[in-house]
């Protein structure tokens, strides 16, 4: 399936951006680390970051087989050396470090590559949460629905990885920040912060998603694509 272009994304979805001000004051480059529920994610983020980051390269999950896979492997396009060179040249990176894409858009396990790159280069890691992109463009659709669905792009505060720190610890920090963004959709911003402080963030974040691994696949997809009630147009002012 083809990935929609940046211009198409501009026309097709209505992004609500939060936390972009954290970035505009800092010198680049950054390593953006995002969850990856949908194909619209990479063009959406490059659209949202257009005014903030001059150059952005997005690195999606590596193709597993076929000619593209062997080309990527032989040229070393995803190697740490190439990515470090890009950062050295002031190019920001957008990484989707989930090992596999869940069929219902939920968060899966992260690999430690992004954290390792951040530790190695000292470049700030910016956790990004994408909410609503799965609903806007689920894998079986080619174009988002026509109502310009609302999607949220939530930037967390940049994480500065200290040289020598454990990649798994930094990855945990990133996952926590992304879960905080997911929890914001259900419990509100302050509710999410409180949940984080109380250590019940996973539960709060899980509510936005398919409802946990335990439920049946159809139920998870059903929940993930449920219409956004806040978006319905109403005649009467509530």
């Amino acid at each position, binding site marked *: 399936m083809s990935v929609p272009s940046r211009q198409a994304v501009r026309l097709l979805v209505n992004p*609500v951006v*939060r936390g972009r*001000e*954290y970035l*505009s*004051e*800092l010198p680049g480059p950054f390593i953006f680390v995002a969850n990856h529920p949908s194909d619209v994610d990479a063009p959406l983020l490059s659209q949202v970051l257009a005014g903030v980051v001059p150059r952005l390269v997005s690195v999606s999950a590596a193709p597993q087989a076929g000619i593209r896979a062997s080309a990527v492997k032989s040229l070393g396009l995803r190697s740490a050396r190439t990515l470090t060179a890009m950062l050295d040249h002031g190019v920001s990176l957008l990484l989707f470090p989930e090992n596999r894409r869940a069929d219902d858009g939920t968060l899966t396990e992260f690999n430690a590559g992004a954290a390792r790159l951040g530790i190695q280069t000292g470049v700030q890691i910016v956790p990004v949460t994408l909410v609503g992109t799965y609903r806007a463009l689920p894998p079986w659709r080619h174009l988002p629905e026509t109502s310009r669905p609302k999607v949220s792009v939530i930037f967390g*505060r940049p994480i500065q990885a200290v040289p020598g720190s454990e990649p798994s610890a930094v990855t945990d920090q990133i996952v926590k920040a992304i879960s905080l963004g997911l929890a*914001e959709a259900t419990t*509100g*911003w*302050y*509710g999410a*912060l*409180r949940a*984080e*402080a*109380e250590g019940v963030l996973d539960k709060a974040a899980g509510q936005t998603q398919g409802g946990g691994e335990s439920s049946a696949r159809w139920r998870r997809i059903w929940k993930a694509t449920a219409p956004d009630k806040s978006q319905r147009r109403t005649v009467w002012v509530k």
Partner: protein
Amino acid sequence: MSRPGFVLSVDAQTPPLVVFQGERVLLQRLPSGASVLYPPDALPGIHQLDAEISQALANPIDSEPLTALLRRGSRVTVVFDDLSQPSTSRAAPDVRQRVIEHVLELAAAAGVDDVELIAATGLRRRLTPYDLQRVLGERVFASFFPEHLHSHDAEDGNLIEVGTAEDGTPIEINARVVSSDLVISVRLATAVGNEGAPAVATKLASARTARALTSPLAAAAGASAFESLVDTIGDTATVFTIDVTLTPEPTGPTTAFLSKREREWNITDRVLSAGIQVATKVLPSRAKLGLSQISGVGFGVTSVLAGKPSSVHPLTESFLAQQQVGEVDSPADVALFGIPNPNGFGTALNPVTAASLGLGQIFNGQAAKPVVRAGGTAIFYHPLTPWFHPLYHPAYVDFFAEALSATTDPAALSADFEGKFAADTWFRHLYQTSYAHHALHPFHAWYSAAPAIEHLGEIIFVGGNLESTRRMGFKAATTLNDALEMASDSVGLSPSITYVHGAPVSISEVS
């Protein structure tokens, strides 16, 4: 340190100077020999605001860090400045949002659930949900509105007496604030005289208290009554303040040239100026209002200080003093002021507000001492159109029509009209449930102008509406030459003239 202000002597080579007149910007040629007072250039804004806020909260002045003050289960109230202070940016989040988000992140981590946010409106209008969202951002708004985010209500029964003034006036303060463990006050200031009293309680008092302490008949000085309420309010509430200072004028590419010195204008500035001249001539008045609103891009943040209010306030004040013009050698016979419409308000200034704002410049202006001598003449540029915002200014309409047409003397106004306005149930209803200023607000605006009226011999408005100026006891002139001619009776044929360049420093104080 920015480039200091200076005084220019007008000669034959001096180009016409920028003068604000409501929504218009005039280019006015001044008579030879007049002095022009340029304020210092604005300090460059802080670039890394997030880092600055974190630093201020972690290293407060004469106080423990905020993280140590926030405890699990404590009752926290965040008090923030309303739209009497400008919003700092049009596109990016307001600085109040930035500071409050930092504070709430710390509060959440400390385990605070009982948080309430109150806009310190005093007797000004409540903020609309839209205003609140614009000032605090969608995240804070969605998390707390409407139960835990609202404006102060000076007429609410829910006010607690925390003490008495010297003359026995009870001091009643917002009950939520008094019953809190920690009150975090987020304050903005653009210039000296604009940073308000050190005590946050002045903006959270009841209408009864505010009336008693501001009345010209009252013996007690208003500010001293709140002296004991600076660092603590009531028995439990400790105050932690976060003072943010802003550049005195909006900074942005489009209108930055208006505060530049005219001799230094480059070709782009000249073209922009010509464009504004044409636009204000051609456009209808509503569109002109819009023009003045897009022109201000935002106010830069110059400092963030946090800590104990009684320690932070003097530091803020002295920091702001750096942005002031130095001493004026000798006060002039005639002073000239331009009064623009404040941008971002969505309304023109009503005549009472415009007059009190202009006259406020005499004592709280850009110079440390009044620029005009006692008995001198002040010439203001403002149209004084008798227009009042239908939602915000219902009490002003009656004040202007009834009270001011009977008398302009503050003591007489206080004795004859204030009580009637304060007791008016309709005005109270509009204040509490709609978005009207309190019925006492026009009185207090007028009282604030009274010392300047007393100080001056004559007050002339160039381009002022004849009816409005007469009603307020001033004079109207069509041009500057006419105004100087009218003033010649009291200041002679060759008076010394000082023009205070730029917008009034406390332009936003009037909301």
